[in-house]
């Protein structure tokens, strides 16, 4: 699970033309906080735990670094789901990064659901550095949720028009 460089740029996440039937595979972006969740993902990899490959991990210094526009921009670039994962409240390397982030995510999640976007599209979680297996299960759950939803149609940008 190589780490990719930090900012979400349009080249990173290309949307293939998709319709439900032709073997569509979900593409999910995961913003993992460098100290806990990313380390948890690393632990899962080191201990050979298998989990679904459709995740593109983007390492960020802290879940507090996530600007809501990153998430909305990812959805616009055609990604099917976004996962943001940080340290458990109280474990944050920067003490309050995830606590501030929690409020931002609460508002964003409610707002996107209010607009009509399926709640499972954007998910948030806390994974600590020692929870390798829990990370793998989290990814399995997120991917299966997204598979149930099918490809993203809302907020997706088409350039061809």
């Amino acid at each position, binding site marked *: 699970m190589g780490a990719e460089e930090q900012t979400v740029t*349009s080249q990173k996440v*290309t*949307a293939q033309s998709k319709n439900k039937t032709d073997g569509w595979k979900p593409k999910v972006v995961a913003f993992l906080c460098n100290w806990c969740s990313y380390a948890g993902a690393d632990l899962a990899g080191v201990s050979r735990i298998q989990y679904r490959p459709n995740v593109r991990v983007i390492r960020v210094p802290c879940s507090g670094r996530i600007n809501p526009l990153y998430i909305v921009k990812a959805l616009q670039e*055609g990604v099917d789901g976004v996962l943001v994962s940080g340290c458990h409240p109280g474990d944050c390397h920067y003490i309050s990064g995830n606590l501030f982030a929690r409020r931002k995510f609460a508002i964003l999640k409610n707002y996107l659901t209010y607009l009509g976007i399926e709640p499972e599209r954007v998910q948030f979680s806390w994974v600590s550095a020692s929870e390798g297996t829990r990370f793998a299960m989290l990814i399995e759950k997120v991917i299966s949720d997204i598979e149930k939803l099918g490809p993203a149609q809302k907020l997706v940008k088409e350039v061809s028009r």
Partner: protein
Amino acid sequence: MKQGILTLSELTKFIELLKTSYKVFAPVKKEEGVFFEEVNSADDIALGYYNSKLPPKRLFLPQCEVLCTFENGQLVEIPIADEKCAIFGMRPCDALALSRIDMVFDKEDLKDPYYLARRKNTVLLSLVCDKPLDTCFCTSVGGGPSSGDGSDIRMVHLGNRLLLEALTEKGESLISSAKQFLKKPKQSDLEEKEKIVAESEKKVPRIKVDGIKENLEKGFNLPLWSAIAERCLGCGVCTYLCPTCYCFDITDEVKGEKGKRIRTWDSCQYPLFTLHASGHNPRPSKTERMRQRIMHKFFYAVENFGRTFCVGCGRCVRSCPVNLDLRESIELITGNKACVSTRK
């Protein structure tokens, strides 16, 4: 055949005929106001409307237009619109505005293929204005409720029928192709038309515009500019809703390897309009930008094209969030007391 009478009952067939060779756009009444949209049948058309919220210029200079598409840095396609359209029921001030913009986009050495293709493929049926509002002042800036500039056919709404007059060959060929629905206009029809036009011209409020070019020539550094622009919030609605505003921006829109170079509306009221890469901005504050808007329409355009680039439609007056009234600014500049001469 130059003229014809179309009874409103025949309008549906006339529109069907138009639809055979043209995409027909007409004023459609919606909740927030009247907009020009494609219509399928005659009964969608709001014939008795005042004027549309957004000018029909949108159909020639769309808010976003693709100049070319590219992939991996290579040019792919240059989509120049070639579908034939008909605009039914445009007000004369908007048609006049289009004839102004034609001067900018149809210069002998530098022609704009996108705009001109649309203009060439479109026939304009303008509807004489019998409903001027208190914010209209077309007669003060060289227009009028029955001006034919820019339109191919001029229509007059006579109670239950429409008098059509062809002003260009395009109009004439359209009228002759619709002969079966049209009757020869009687003398009474023509008199009724003159009455409506005269009455409507009297209803249009007048403002003092003469002498504005000379005042503007000397007036670049007058303190009145900061007084005029003090209330302005720089939102650009006045330029987006103005039928003669044509300024645009060119940017690239990319998704993955594919992308397109698009031309979108822009406004001299926005700070980024003239911001240099070095950070210097020749028009840094709202005062300079408001001055540019008025100078361009009433002085620079007159110097470059010999015409005032304002057709007095009043859209900027009605839709400004802080009621910055162009008529008051004009009268402030021409030295008259800054009061708006309401309906006489």
